[in-house]
């Protein structure tokens, strides 16, 4: 009997077409798996009733010959996407119980294509974090363990930690995520799966709880490149309700995977060889370079001179936009309210008790950076450096088609590590933030494991609107890496 939770989406679609199983059967298998993997805390809200209803409707739709792109596929939705009638928390206490009366554009697209929602997955509070340790609903546990016998619980990465953990643990076939500075790519690397953030503007932001509006972009988690392409295909598209949504046709990403990468120019940015980079990261990067060379690509050395300024730039722009976006949480229109002696005190008490530490820090940094007398010195300065960072990429793309880098400077770390110092946590995103600032498409593909058996990812960064080459190069790496490892507890179940 086929293991219904260990298929790729493409395999599942084929099986559904051949009537090997129904969507209700796959969905039930995922619900059972989801409920037996609750120790991971990947889901904030499980929606088994909705899932089974959608699955039955999908089976009926399929029987009539009406088959969407994701017809009958059970997926997880990051709890940052508004879902009609289902609590949407953004990982925050301040939105506990908030039940949207509308559906985000991305999930609307997916449901129209036949997707089945298993539930809403955990994340860092308002997507602010790199370890999924800032969620009001508790830490997510990475399904992977070190192979040295130490039983430490590892971080799944963040902010889309629940999405990555769920897909890796086979309790969702795929999942949506959002990426502001690396929140799809870094957790995908930590959990040994594939994650793609498309070009800014490719997916509508409408109905996604806002963090940093000039950076936030939705994207896809899956267990291989083809599935990622398929999910992204469904999520993407022009939406008049988002003023920064691109009115451009969405290419057929899956069809784009065919063909080879012969003659494609792969840029290797020298500034990403940072001091103190672990040798294992350097080795996996070199392997990636060799694989692509063997596949017929041409390797080109490039320079992105302002790379080291990306993190400080990000940590002005993102908090500034966050302080502005999060001003809406005032205890009046939705969410938590804590009464005070007057309206101002009610605001202050509501926000003090509704937001966690990291969110408060970022609101305060942003408020400071935007405050009178500091605005030019911080915010405008950061926007200028942001242009220089973006120019670096455009200059590099005169010499190459895509860039190849490691996704993160380490494998998954243990929960509790990196928590004493916010800056140390921020350094996790050193390789992902620059592409975010430039709005470029980026993808992480699992490339191997470190000496402790933990997955390591390689990142491919493309030109604006060129997800196709990003996916194609990701596909080439996937073929060469032949990454078959699974989290230990899955292997035990499968055995």
């Amino acid at each position, binding site marked *: 009997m086929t293991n219904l939770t260990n298929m790729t989406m493409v395999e599942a679609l084929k099986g559904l077409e051949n009537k090997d199983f129904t969507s209700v059967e796959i969905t039930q298998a995922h619900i059972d798996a989801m409920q037996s993997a609750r120790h991971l805390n990947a889901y904030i809200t499980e929606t088994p009733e909705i899932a089974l209803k959608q699955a039955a409707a999908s089976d009926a739709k399929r029987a009539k010959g009406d088959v969407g792109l994701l017809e009958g596929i059970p997926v997880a939705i990051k709890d940052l996407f508004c879902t009609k009638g289902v609590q949407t928390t953004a990982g925050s206490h301040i939105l506990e119980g908030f039940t949207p009366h509308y559906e985000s554009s991305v999930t609307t697209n997916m449901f129209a294509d036949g997707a089945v929602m298993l539930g809403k997955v955990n994340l860092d509070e308002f997507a602010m974090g790199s370890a999924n340790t800032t969620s009001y609903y508790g830490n997510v546990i990475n399904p992977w363990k070190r192979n040295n016998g130490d039983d430490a619980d590892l971080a799944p990465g963040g902010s889309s930690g629940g999405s990555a953990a769920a897909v890796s643990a086979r309790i969702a076939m795929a999942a949506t995520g959002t990426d502001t500075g690396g929140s799809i790519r870094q957790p995908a690397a930590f959990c040994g799966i594939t994650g793609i953030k498309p070009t800014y503007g490719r997916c509508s932001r409408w109905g996604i709880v806002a963090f940093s509006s000039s950076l936030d972009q939705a994207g896809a988690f899956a267990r291989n490149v083809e599935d990622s392409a398929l999910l992204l295909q469904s999520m993407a598209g022009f939406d008049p309700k988002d003023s920064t949504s691109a009115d451009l046709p969405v290419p057929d990403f899956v069809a784009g995977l065919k063909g080879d990468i012969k003659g494609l120019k792969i840029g290797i940015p020298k500034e990403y060889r940072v001091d103190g980079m672990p040798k294992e990261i350097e080795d996996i990067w070199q392997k990636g370079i060799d694989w692509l060379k063997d596949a017929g690509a041409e390797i080109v050395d490039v320079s992105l001179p302002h790379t080291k300024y990306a993190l400080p*730039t990000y940590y002005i722009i993102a908090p500034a936009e966050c302080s502005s976006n999060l001003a809406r949480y005032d205890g*009046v229109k939705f969410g938590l*309210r804590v009464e005070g002696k007057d309206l101002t005190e009610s605001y*202050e008490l509501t926000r*003090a008790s509704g937001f966690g530490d990291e969110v408060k820090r970022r*609101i305060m*940094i942003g408020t400071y950076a935007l405050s009178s007398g500091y605005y030019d010195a911080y915010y405008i300065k950061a926007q200028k450096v*942001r242009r*220089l960072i973006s120019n670096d990429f455009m200059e590099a793309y005169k010499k190459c088609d895509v860039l190849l880098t490691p996704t993160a400077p380490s494998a998954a770390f243990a929960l509790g590590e990196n928590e004493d110092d916010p800056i140390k946590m921020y350094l996790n995103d050193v390789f992902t933030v620059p592409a975010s600032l430039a709005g470029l498409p980026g993808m992480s593909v699992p490339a191997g494991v470190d000496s402790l058996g933990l997955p390591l990812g390689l990142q491919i960064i493309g030109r604006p609107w060129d997800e196709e080459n990003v996916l194609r190069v990701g596909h080439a790496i996937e073929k060469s890496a032949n990454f078959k490892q699974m989290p230990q507890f899955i292997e035990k179940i499968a055995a």
Partner: protein
Amino acid sequence: MSLEKKDVEKVARLARLKITDEEATRYGTQLSNIINFVEQLKEVDTDNVEPLASVVDIKLRLREDVVTDGGIQADVIANAPESLEGFFVVPKVVE
């Protein structure tokens, strides 16, 4: 650059966040570290560089000036902590 306790208290007030004395001290240290970290941008020569506000080269669109939405008062107030006859209710602000 370091943020004194009173600076943190001012920022917290601007951000409408009630903070305790202990928090003001703790955040003071953490925020100072972050500010010092971002100060390295000062090294970058940005003379004659235009600030980048949006990465997408997309012109804002105009749409037909017609009603496309509305009539959903019940939906709008459905999540309000307190509402009355279709209004949001807040503590008294005018004496």
